[in-house]
């Protein structure tokens, strides 16, 4: 049995907790509950015949007043950068977080920590503010982008499996 720590990162209200709830408990609640500090969940999955227990650290979203505590990221094997597709500024925030992690952790471990960018709330098609060009730009940088919806469950489980594969270096 392998245990891995995964962090959910992103701006406040992008749907980190909802993604975790959808993945772990297959439920979705439209009500918004702000996460204070950190919420921890656990899910056991099997990837390429390997049983992996994912410890999901759902961190409080970043906003103007609150910045992510780097100490919570310590020891993470991978992370999600969650972006709200309907709010362009959350994409900018995701960039900032990625940069911060690179500085805080990447330099310490000496290797890049695997991550996946989730463009969440894909069900709100009419309000999407992130263009295909921008997505292409990410992909050009080598970032993996997955369009998800915690509400419909679209690509949620696949995203976690994808990140786990990256962590386990399974292509």
């Amino acid at each position, binding site marked *: *049995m*392998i*245990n*891995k*720590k995964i962090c959910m990162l992103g701006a406040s209200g992008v749907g980190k907790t909802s993604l975790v709830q959808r993945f772990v408990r297959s439920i979705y609640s439209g009500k918004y509950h702000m996460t204070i*500090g*950190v919420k*921890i*969940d*656990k899910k056991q999955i099997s990837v390429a015949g390997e049983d*992996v*227990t994912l*410890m999901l*650290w759902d961190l409080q979203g970043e906003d103007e007043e609150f910045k992510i*505590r780097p*100490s*919570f990221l*310590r*020891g*993470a*094997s991978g992370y999600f950068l969650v972006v709200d597709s309907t709010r362009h500024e959350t994409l900018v925030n995701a960039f900032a977080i990625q940069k911060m992690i690179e500085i805080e952790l990447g330099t310490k471990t000496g290797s890049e920590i695997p991550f996946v960018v989730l463009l969440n709330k894909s069900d709100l098609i009419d309000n999407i503010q992130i263009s295909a060009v921008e997505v292409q730009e990410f992909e050009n940088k080598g970032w993996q982008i997955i369009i998800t919806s915690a509400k419909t469950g679209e690509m949620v489980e696949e995203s976690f499996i994808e990140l786990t594969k990256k962590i386990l270096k399974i292509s």
Partner: protein
Amino acid sequence: MKSKSLQQEKVERILESEKTSDSSFIGEAPKNNVETAEFDEFGSLRLLLLSQEQSKISQLEAKVKTLQSQLDTLPPATSKEVSDVLPKAIKHRNKIDNQLSKATLPIVVDNIRQSVKENPQILAEALFPAIGPAIRKAIAEALATMVQSLNQTIEYSFSPRSIKWRLEAFQTGKSFAEVVLIKTLLYRVEEIFLIHKETGLLIQHVSANIGKGQDADMVSAMLTAIQDFVRDSFSNSADANLDTLTLGELSVWIERSQDLLFAAVIRGNAPLSLREKFQTSLEEIVIDQEDEINNFQGEVDSFERSRPVLQECLQYQLGNENQSRGKVTPFNFGVAFIGLLLCVAGIFWFIDYWRWTSYVADLKNQKGIVVTETERGWFYHSVQGLRDPTAADPINLLKTYSLNSEKTFSRWEEYQSSNPEIILKRANFLLNPPKDVSLTFADGILLINGNATKQWVDNAKLVAAAIVGIKEVRTNNVSINDLKEKLEALNVFFVCKSVDYEKDQNQTISDIANQLTELKNVAKTQNINIRFESQGNADGKGSTDTNNKISLKRAEKLAESVRSISPDLKDLEIKPNGLGATEKVGCSASIEATLEQ
């Protein structure tokens, strides 16, 4: 331009051919005669372009051939050579991954199965040294647990304390067992989490199985998060650590090494020495599993062997009820002191009560005493009633019951008891009977027994008539005069003209001897001098002289006969006296007594 393109085409063809068949290009000449000339040109070109590579290839081919021939000449690897490297190879491979174990597992399983199938005894013998003690230990532990459980069940089932706990269990909705555990535990290490410090991942977890705990993985992650949160929020130092968390009766003690966190969930108040135990256990694990810890990538299975070390830390201590309750406070001390005083006073009170009631009961049973009123106080007692002067002394009776006469007020009015015993006592007191005289009293009649002088008896009768309760005085006294008369009435008869006894006189002689003895004894007790005279008689048919002689002889013979019967009479002086002819009694003899008072 055209030739150039043609040449280029040719080169390309060559290269294409080279791709499809290396051997044909490098080692052998082409077999097609039609194109021989063309190939010569190609050969020149080939030499021109690839001469260096060709020579290198040739060298390598030669080297391979040499090596191949050397290899062929070598003998195959011997089992000895393999055995030299095999252990090292296995060890090396095991360090890399567990593929070797996986690969050999089916073989090992098959081997064991086959071995058991062929001869189960081998495996049984091999396992016996390990299984034997393990079974014994398990049985001993089970028995000890059962005995402890039984003791506790008995203790907790029948004591007043258990009733209180049952009530508490009922009120709080907890199970009785839970309440008992909480009340009797001094402390108990309920859970231990071994956590990888950096990732917050749970490496190992042991629990004392009390209740249903939270998910250990999540708890350990949260613990790590809390630690980080506290450090980030309240301390500037990265080295500052959270050592203890406390929530009501529960506390979490955290020990740490460079890479691990050791978190113990404790209920109750554990001694600080337990921290040393935790630290030692943690160090033991760190030393034992250094490689696994250093290379930790989330694999937790390899930490299974640390489980026993952690389980040893699941310690507990049952509280001593007396200790837990026995905090000496001034209040407790005061209560205890007053309690002790009350206890002592109670004991004294009870002893005094017992003595006094026993004394009063005894008084009431005494003849000649009538208890009319008693009172018992803390410091003084009083008793009053009627008392016959001859009854037992109540003051002396106090001593029998160890009661203090100075602290007892007694008031007794004199009275004359009509109790027969008291009347007799009173008679004895007033009459003062001589040594050989005893008095009895029944139905109002006082009976005087024994030998008393007539004077005393007369006086006694006079006094007794005045004693209350005595209606009549009777005497059972033996009169010396009566005895004298009885003695003197006995006559022994002789054959006339002879001193020989008539037939059947022996009985009379014996009676005379007995009567004489009694009279002598009575006279002695009554201090009366007495003289005896044996008197012989004749019938008067002969001469006076003859009659005198024969009557004297008869008197002498009777005296002699009486003396010879009893040793007491042997030396008794009996004076013989021949009375001569007496018509009244004829040929006989008798003994007369003379009293000298």
